[in-house]
């Protein structure tokens, strides 16, 4: 620090000095630094609000809140439901998104691929309320039959133990709706990543006598691995936080169960907040905010985990190819 503040005559005569001399650079530095600090400030503000308002809810005794339970037993089914529905959505959406991205990038003529890409991107523009309506009114009814079939044929698995819901408004239906909602973002990122596969590597594989699928397996998928994980995490983030669609589709009853097709389903944190908040008062509000804090922490943890996965095999990531 002291060195930069000491006037050094030899420096002053050259152009290579610090950017301080140029107004444009200083303005840009100020703007970008301000933008970065604003994000941190907003994040800190949200964290402080959630903590300050949430702590009374966490410490409240069971008879002071509407649910009549202690905070852990109130929030645990919600945490489970949130993670469970988001995981199911990822399991459905990621393979589909990768397949769509590969198809669009490698298997159709460029023009058609672009058109398909736009259509998929349009899915992202549909409001979540619309997805909720569709899931509740159309999809749920359609899935009643398949759920009954699943119960009959695969009922020995805990996932399909049943009894199958008569309305179809189960956690699996919610997960399917969530999967449709996160499909565009995951697909868009997978497409972008696949498009950036170096031509040199694609040709290396083809010149060794790889078929198109073998080329994809040898070069494209490994190269796109960290990008696909990043896309999946963005999708997971959206699935974890999605409120309206889940609130509308799911008939929730605050249990922890692996059963995907029964009429008793765990709710999710955001859906529960949306459904309960209007009628809540006093410490119940604080308990709901505290559940929001839990979601905040989960989202953070998911992001850090994703980063760790991406960095784990950096040497082999192709970053220096």
């Amino acid at each position: 620090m002291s060195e930069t503040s000491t006037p050094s005559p030899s420096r002053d005569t050259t152009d290579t000095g610090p950017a301080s001399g140029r107004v444009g650079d200083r303005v840009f530095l100020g703007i970008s630094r301000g933008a970065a600090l604003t994000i941190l400030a907003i994040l800190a503000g949200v964290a402080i609000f959630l903590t300050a308002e949430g702590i009374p809810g966490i410490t409240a005794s069971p008879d002071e809140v509407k649910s009549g339970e202690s905070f852990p037993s109130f929030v645990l089914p919600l945490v489970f439901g949130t993670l469970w529905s988001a995981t199911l959505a990822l399991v459905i959406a990621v393979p589909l998104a990768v397949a769509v991205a590969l198809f669009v990038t490698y298997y159709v003529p460029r023009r058609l691929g672009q058109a398909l890409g736009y259509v998929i991107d349009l899915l992202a523009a549909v409001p979540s309320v619309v997805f909720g309506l569709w899931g509740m009114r159309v999809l749920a009814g359609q899935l009643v039959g398949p759920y009954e079939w699943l119960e009959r044929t695969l009922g020995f698995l805990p996932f399909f133990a049943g009894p199958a819901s008569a309305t179809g408004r189960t956690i699996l239906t919610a997960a399917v709706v969530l999967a449709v909602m996160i499909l565009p973002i995951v697909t868009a990122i997978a497409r972008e990543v696949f498009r950036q596969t170096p031509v040199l590597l694609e040709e290396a594989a083809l010149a060794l006598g790889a078929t198109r699928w073998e080329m994809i397996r040898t070069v494209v998928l490994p190269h796109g691995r960290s990008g696909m994980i990043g896309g999946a995490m963005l999708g997971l983030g959206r699935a974890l936080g999605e409120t309206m669609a889940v609130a509308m589709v799911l008939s929730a009853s605050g249990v922890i169960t692996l059963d995907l097709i029964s009429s008793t389903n765990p709710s999710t944190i955001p859906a529960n907040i949306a459904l309960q908040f209007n009628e809540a008062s006093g410490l119940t509000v604080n308990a709901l905010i505290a559940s929001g804090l839990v979601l905040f922490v989960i989202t953070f943890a998911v992001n850090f985990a994703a980063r760790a996965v991406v960095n784990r095999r950096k040497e082999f990531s192709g970053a220096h190819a």
Partner: protein
Amino acid sequence: MSMRSVLRDSVPTPVPTPAVTAAGGGSRRPAIGIDVEDLDIYYGDVQAVRGVTLAIPAQSVTAVIGPSGCGKSTFLRSLNRMHEVAPGARVDGTVRVDGRDLYAAGVDPVLVRREIGMVFQRPNPFPTMSIRDNVLAGVRLNGGRLKKDAAEAVVERSLRGANLWDEVKDRLNRPGAGLSGGQQQRLCIARAIAVEPQVLLMDEPCSALDPISTSAIEDLIGQLKSEYTIVIVTHNMQQAARVSDETAFFNLAGVGEPGQLVESGATTKIFSNPDNPSTEAYITGRFG
């Protein structure tokens, strides 16, 4: 075009190169030559190369030289059907390897590429794979699973064949991308010869390398020609003179016209006493 007779004129290599005729076919070794007849190459509506007729002898090094944009690389890539990777690319004419036309109906380009290896301008080892897996990549594509010791044997043979074994034998599990540029290029050669192709195509394999690495690759080319038919595209005429037995000179027919083969023959002849004045002009550095 009289290059055929020129080709048969004199063979300056110490090792006599048997002029294996295309009709001879059948045996896997020794390597076999390539017969190109009246080859036209197009990208969409644009013709890139016109009317190439050239006999590439077996177990020798044939250099393809010429100014930028004259279709050398396009021609090379048509020899293993790699140019088809570009949309709209197509070919008229025949390319016979071992008597079979690569462009006959029903020939699968994937199988062609398994028989004819290729080394590219810039080293392109698979960055997500270790050195060992890079060498085995083609083998795994071609024939499925190898027993562990068979795989080790292939790795050692190929890396020794590419003069790389001593430098990497202690770190076969390290990423291939961690090697120097010259080592990466030799790794790519090891990857290409691991599948025992009949022909090895090299597209300016040294253009991204320093002189020492270049010299290592050139030595390697000299050794490989006893087993493979090698076609090398190069911008560097000294390199063509050093490594090749035969030379083919490509040039543009005119501004905006497709590239064509001007002259081909024994390297010693092309570099000392070419028939065509434009060949002489290019080789002596008066253009290009």
